[in-house]
């Protein structure tokens, strides 16, 4: 479903020169597979998700989603592919404050090829337990509820791959499991592959497959951490 080959990315440093961030020979995620990606802060996890989502291009290598190399697509096509085939859950939820819960989910559909499906958006919000919050704005909802809206929004367009960037980083321990369970269950129901970034050991423990970015990333970016990654 997702294949990365020889993906390299570096950023220009303010004083000149380049700072290598990513050098990943290979990474694959199968259809419907759920993978957790770990690594210390600054090791390139968010950059990797941005590359997979087509938000930024890699300097080298290929990022294939459904046999389409997103790295070679022009920007407009990457935008369309991102809208149609990918879902994205952000660490800070990134719900738009002026929109209700339902409208935030509909917004996820507004930019895709499919038509805006209010029934599906409502269904997704019901699925995440927010049927009573459809018309509420983010400011009127708890942090946990906001993240559930974000999950519903990410699944709005029936994506094939859900990228979740530390979705429980701003949620208390009691809600962490609920959120992770919700993401995993809905991904299973919708047959969506999941690539989830986390720092939390409890979250890692729930996944069969854990990828440590520091181990698969050959970019020299500080000393690799040995053993299991820890929450930081």
């Amino acid at each position: 479903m997702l294949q990365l080959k020889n993906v390299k990315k570096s950023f220009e440093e303010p004083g000149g020169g380049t700072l290598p961030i990513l050098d990943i020979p290979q990474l694959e995620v199968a259809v419907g597979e759920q993978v957790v990606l770990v690594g210390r802060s600054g090791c390139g996890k968010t950059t990797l998700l941005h590359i997979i989502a087509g938000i930024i291009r890699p300097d080298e290598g290929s990022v294939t989603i459904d046999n389409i190399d997103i790295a070679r697509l022009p920007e407009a096509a990457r935008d369309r592919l991102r809208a149609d085939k990918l879902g994205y859950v952000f660490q800070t939820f990134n719900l738009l404050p002026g929109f209700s819960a339902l409208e935030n989910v509909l917004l996820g559909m507004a930019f895709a090829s499919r038509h805006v499906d209010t029934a599906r958006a409502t269904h997704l919000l019901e699925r995440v337990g927010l049927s009573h919050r459809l018309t509420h704005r983010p400011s009127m909802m708890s942090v946990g509820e906001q993240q559930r809206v974000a999950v519903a929004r990410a699944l709005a367009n029936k994506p094939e791959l859900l990228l979740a960037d530390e979705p429980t980083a701003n949620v208390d321990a009691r809600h962490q499991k609920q959120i992770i369970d919700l993401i995993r269950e809905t991904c299973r129901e919708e047959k969506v592959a999941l690539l989830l970034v986390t720092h939390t050991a409890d979250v890692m423990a729930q996944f069969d497959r854990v990828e440590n970015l520091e181990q698969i990333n050959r970019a020299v970016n500080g000393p690799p951490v040995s053993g299991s990654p820890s929450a930081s």
Partner: protein
Amino acid sequence: MSLWKIAWRSIQQRTLASSLTAVSMALGVMLVVAVLVAGNIVHDSFSIGNRLGYNIVVGAKGGRLDLLLNSVYYLSRPIENIPWEYYKEFLPASAHKDGKAGKYSGYVLEDDPNEKARGLAIPICLGDFLGDEKESFRVVGTPPEMFTKLMKSKFSSGEVFKSSDFATAVVGAEVASHLHLKVGGDIAPMHGGIGGEVHMPFKITGILERTGTPSDRAAFVNIEGFFLIPDHARGHVEEVHVPGQPEEKEEMLKTPLPEDQREVTAILILTASLGGDPAKGIDPNPPEAVAPELVKTVNKENVAQAIQPVQEINVLMGYLVQPLELIMDALAVMVVIVAGIGILVSIYNSMSERRHEIAVMRALGARRNTVMLIVLFESILLAMGGGLAGWFAGHLLIGLAGPFVTSSTGIAVGFLQFAPGFELILIPGLIVLASLVGFLPALAAYRTDVGKALTATP
């Protein structure tokens, strides 16, 4: 969810800033509507050429514009008069004791057998006023044919005076309204202006319907009575309204002033339709075609001058009204541009706080063009919302000022008074303006670096 709705939500999200921006646009458009409609009112109040009923004015030699202003608009004071004998030069043989037609009568043909081809020459005399400290109105001495044949006037009450009833008058709609005059009541003209000597009273026989012309703001007395007012005749100095001599007064009011003592301020002429042959189905030349020749003939001599009011009105418009309109239009455009810049500043200032939202939309799959369109739509919604509110407020203002304008100018003005040229382009104009001022913030949205904006703290 449409892009319009997304743009609308963005506006709602910043209610205060958006409202203030829309209000500034509304005030701008309100001002523009009010200014342009006011300009139209000024234009209409001067553009009465087609409603006059005559096509030539003959008066004493002097400024052409002076003659137009005092004889057509009843505004400035006439400097000189012209002799009655000269007026008679426009009349047919039947009006002359010697049976000879006046030398200009061929252009007027008051007794042409073909009624439709007939012209008309109507004398008017000015010099007296009516009113109070707040407002004064011209008193015009004229024969009843002014209303029955020349202006074909309609009366809201009463009727035109009879030529044999010397001390009678009809009054314009605004005069009647302002001075609370009714049929059967009296008016007493004042000589030379308000506060001048009060002359004998004239009984009101009719009140003219409102026409939106200077007639609304004038009182018309029987010219025979006007002649009998002291100082209105050459060598005629007797006081008509001497107290204690009612019989003498009565007798005097039945005796017309001798022709050799008469003077008129101007002659209003509708030229005849000349030429043509009804038997052969050839139409005569219209009065407009005859007028230039008569003007030329009169102006060749030294006694009087003739003008074509329509032409002079155009000159007046060119000198006075059009530059005023141009200034008003320029001011109006500048006001709208300033309001448009207000929209630009408002949206552009919001861009720094909205960069994160734009990045989120891009991460959800929105293209660069899409977020650019959303910002442009926001600008258009603000401009349209403010503009339409301003349009409504402008017309409300005009509606509220309507009674005052109507009483001042005689032009009926209401909520639905339009400035068609401007209002037809209001909506497309606002869209163009909004697109122009929205372009810069839209470009900022287009250029948003999604990766950086997403990782920045929202």
